[in-house]
């Protein structure tokens, strides 16, 4: 339960690309084919271990609908990581990436680590966006890239954890000022760092009590 760091994440992208499903898969390890539209923002949290350190991810899952955009933008601030999600079976969701990216860059801190995610990789037959296109977009804009499936859980864990690793490296390099909480990083209770490795038994999921 005690953590060395807490990272704030945001999940953004068009409506219906599977943002909430990715979160649910990550926090609860389950898939829910029918999901209510997210209103504003929903939350999830989970503990992960990087480099022997317990890190708590506090994830803000935002509404994808255009009409909520002005509200969800307010939540970008103070995020250390962002998952920018599109649907590989819907070309338009890929086309909108530039707008999302501009929005994210404008309303968050410049060091925010952004992971580009092409979701629904299980639906290969309906694929409209090639993996190479995603890779190219990521390379061009300096993002990390991954294709995931919230349904089969493929790469979901990796997407969240690799983002955290990147943030962690940036902390080590001194890019992130961890004392400035506007960077979306909080240091855990003081002595968490020293005995976090032993507290592994408490790790694993720590989602919102399964009540979401």
């Amino acid at each position, binding site marked *: *339960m*005690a953590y060395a760091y807490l990272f*704030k994440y945001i999940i953004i992208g068009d409506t219906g690309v599977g943002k909430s499903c990715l979160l649910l898969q990550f926090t609860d390890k389950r898939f829910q084919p029918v999901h209510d539209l997210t*209103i*504003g*923002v929903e*939350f999830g*949290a989970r503990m992960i271990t990087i480099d022997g350190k317990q890190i708590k991810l*506090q994830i*803000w899952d935002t509404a994808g609908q255009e*009409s*909520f955009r*002005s*509200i969800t933008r*307010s*939540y970008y*601030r*103070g995020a250390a990581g962002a998952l920018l999600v599109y649907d590989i079976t819907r070309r338009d969701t890929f086309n909108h990436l530039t707008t999302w990216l501009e929005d994210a860059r404008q309303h968050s*801190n*410049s*060091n925010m680590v952004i992971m580009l995610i092409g979701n629904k990789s299980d639906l290969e037959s309906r694929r409209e966006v090639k993996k190479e296109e995603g890779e190219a977009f990521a390379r061009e804009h300096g993002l990390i890239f991954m294709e995931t499936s919230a349904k089969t859980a493929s790469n979901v864990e990796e997407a969240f954890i690799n983002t955290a690793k990147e943030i962690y490296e940036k902390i080590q390099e*001194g*890019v*992130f*000022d*961890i*004392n*400035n*909480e*506007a960077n*979306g990083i909080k240091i*855990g*209770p*003081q*002595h*968490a*760092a*020293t*005995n976090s490795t032993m507290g592994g038994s408490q790790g694993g999921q*720590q989602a*919102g*009590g399964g*009540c*979401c």
Partner: protein
Amino acid sequence: MSDSESSTSDRTEKSMDQEHKEPSPAPRDEPSADAQSDSSTDVTPTRKTRKRPELKPPAEEQKNLQTPQSAESAPNASTETTVSQGGWGYWGSWGKSILSTATATVATVGQGLTQVIEKAETSLGIPSPEELSAQAEEEKTDDSSGTNKEEGEKAYGMGGAMGMISSSSMGMLSSLTTVVQSTGKTVISGGLDALEFIGKKTMDVIAEGDPGFKKTKGLMNRNSTLSQVLREAKEREQQQQEAESVSSETDKKAHYGMLFDEFQGLSHLEALEILSRESEAKVKSVLTTLSGEELTKLREELQDIKEPFSLMEFDDELEDDMKGDDGEDFVKELTDVLERLQISTSADKLSKARKNAFNHITNMKLQSESKQQEEEEEEEEEEKEQETPVTKYSVEDAHLFAITSLAEFTARSIEQFQKTAEMLLHCNTEEATAAEQARVLSQVTIVICKEVSLLSKKYTSCLTTIGANEKGEVLNPLITSVFLEASNSASYIQDAFQLLMPVLEVSHIQRTVESAQ
């Protein structure tokens, strides 16, 4: 900016220590080091101040706290000022008030004075002196590794924009000192209220409980946001728990703050604070663009919206009889009231939290009733002992249920307000004016707080039944802590309600603009 100060003062402190050790080991000049750190704007020394409650706060810091407040036009400004003026001096009166309530308690309940204080301390999350000294040592080691890095980090300063962000986002202030200072104070003054309240009430409770929430005075201090107060509390609990697990006293203890966070209460609160803060800024900027009649008109309209936020009277004398209330009345009342908001909100999650609480209570009641029966039978025939019921709740279990329920219910209430804020900003309804909505929301707050009060009554009555054979020293602190957390819950809920005011104002402005076009 305070980062740099903190690192330097840390270093000076440490280097001073070292100097003392090497050239002149005789006078361990602790006090001077302390005095220095107390006046500096540093996080660690502030914690030290906290460890020494009898110390008076440095004058300049008090000023810091007061200036922004005097500029506030918040309705509860007066209470805030008293709180901050009291400063650490409050400890004195705090102790006294405990003493008086404690003696009262001793008389009625037969509970030891030290215990009341001990309990009060643990419920307030104030670490014991042993923990504090351990903490201080760890802080020192942590600091030494942190100082070098800080210079490197500063080099990556992110320019002016960061300054803006740091002062506004996620409720984090760039100067942690004021936060910690005022947070400490708010928690304590909040706790003070609660304690006085408990002191008076504990006796009533034993006789026949009625924890009303007459006071609308919340914990909110403009220098520290509510989520900070709660996060701090949670972190302290975390530390406490770890300290406890080391000494392996009791493993199962109910920690309200941690539970509240697990139910995502903190996150929703943070989100609500963001919306509130941004709305506040928008309202201010709109007001600066207006002049003359327009300005007067808008000011008046905003005043209508503000009104319901300043008058909140709790009608706690209203007798809710303790019949098998499964929360349906509450759900119905809440749904009816929410409907009048004319925005699409659902009370499902809050209703579910209420139902969970009801289930816990029913289970415990059933169990305790069967236990009572058993005892009656036991008096007749002693050999019945083996047939213990499958689910046997201890008073600790009951207490854990109570605290969990309160944390869940409060987290869901705050989520309800956060969703309301989003919907208010999202859709501009024509059906109800913002002033009407403000009145409705104040009604919602009352309904919810009444329910918190009811829940705490139900849980404490369960506790008294289950713990009928327990000693007062075991049972009373548990009951006290349920009332304390219930009182805190009500404060958090009321503070969250206050955060809706700027949101409604923006919503009103949006609607006015829309209808003008």
